[in-house]
C-alpha cells in the first residue's frame, strides 16, 4: 500500500514531484503555500500581487524540483524563490530604493502581550521592510540581498539595522508572547 502523502517528508515529495508528480507537489503547496504568501505580504506585497507571485514561485519550483537536493528545508528553498521573484517584479518599478514615509502605526503588542509582526512591519520604510524580510524571513544573507536588490552592501546593512531597531522599539512595550500566531484573512 502506498504511503499517504501527508506522512511523506518534503524531500521525498520533492523527489517525486521532480519526476512529474503533481499530486505530490500539490501536497508541498498545501504545506508551504501559506508561509510563502505570508512572507510576500510581509515584504510589502499587496494580497493579490503576493498570491500571484506565490503561484509563480510554486510553478517555477515545480520546474526546478530536481535542483532541490534537500540540503536546506523545502520551505526555505521556496521562500527564496518567491522572494527573488517578487524583487524582480518590483525592480521594474525601482520602488524599493525609494525611501517612503513610514506609517505612524499602532503598537504591535496588544494588551495581553501578543506580538503582531505584520503590524510592526508597517512602521518600517519599504526598503527596511524588504531588507528585514529578506534577511529574517527568506534567509538571504546581506550580500545576497545587496545583489538581488542592486544596492550597496553597506546600504543593505543599515536598512536591516534601522529596520530591526524600529521593530525592537515597536515590539518592546508590554509583555511579549513570541509563540502567538498571526491570522490573516
Amino acid at each position, binding site marked *: 500500500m502506498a504511503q499517504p502523502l501527508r506522512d511523506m517528508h518534503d524531500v521525498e515529495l520533492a523527489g517525486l514531484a521532480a519526476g512529474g508528480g503533481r499530486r505530490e507537489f500539490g501536497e508541498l*503547496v498545501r504545506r508551504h503555500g501559506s508561509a510563502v504568501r505570508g512572507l510576500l*505580504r510581509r515584504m510589502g506585497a499587496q494580497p493579490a500581487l503576493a498570491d500571484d507571485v506565490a503561484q509563480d514561485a510554486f510553478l517555477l519550483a515545480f520546474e526546478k524540483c530536481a535542483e532541490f537536493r534537500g540540503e536546506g528545508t523545502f520551505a526555505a528553498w521556496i521562500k527564496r524563490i518567491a522572494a527573488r521573484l517578487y524583487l524582480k517584479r518590483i525592480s521594474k518599478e525601482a520602488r524599493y530604493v525609494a525611501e517612503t514615509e513610514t506609517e505612524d502605526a499602532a503598537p504591535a503588542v496588544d494588551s495581553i502581550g501578543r506580538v503582531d509582526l505584520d503590524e510592526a512591519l508597517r512602521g518600517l520604510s519599504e526598503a527596511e521592510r524588504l531588507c528585514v524580510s529578506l534577511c*529574517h524571513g527568506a534567509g538571504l544573507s546581506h550580500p545576497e540581498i545587496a545583489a538581488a536588490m542592486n544596492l550597496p552592501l553597506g546600504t543593505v546593512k543599515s536598512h536591516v539595522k534601522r529596520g530591526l531597531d524600529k521593530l*525592537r522599539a515597536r515590539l518592546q512595550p508590554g509583555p511579549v508572547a513570541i509563540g502567538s500566531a498571526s491570522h490573516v484573512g
Partner: protein
Amino acid sequence: MSADEFDPAIERLFAQTPHFADSAFFEADVAARLNKASRVRSIALSAAGLAGGLIAVRELLGVDFQLGPDGFTAHAGGGVDSAGAQAGIQGGLAVQSLLERSGLGDAALSAMGSMGGMQMFWATAGVLVALLAAGVVKLSQQI
C-alpha cells in the same frame, strides 16, 4: 528583551505561518495553472513532433534509395526541393557511416538489402521520426 536575543526572536516570528482562510483556493489555483502548463507543453510537443514527422516523411518521399554492393546511394526525386533532398541524403549517409564505424555496416546492409523498398522506406522514416521526437523532448527539457 536584549538586542542579542532579538534577532532569533524575529526569526521565530517570521517562521510562524499565518493562517489564510482561502488556502484551498490558492492550492486549487496552483494546481489549475500546473495542469494548464502541462497541457500547453503536451500540445506544443505533439505539434512539434507531428510537424517534424511530416517533414521527414515528405523529404523521404522525394529520395530514391538504391542498395547494392557498391554501397548506399540516394538520389533526390522530382517535386522535392534540392535542399530538402540533400538533407535526406546526408541523413541516410550519416546513418550508414555510423553503422560502419560501429562494425554493423555490412550486417545492416545485408539486412536492408533483404527488405523491400517500402519496408526500407518506412523503417528509415520511423527512425528519423523517433530521432526528431527525442530531439524535441530533449530540447524542451533544456528550456
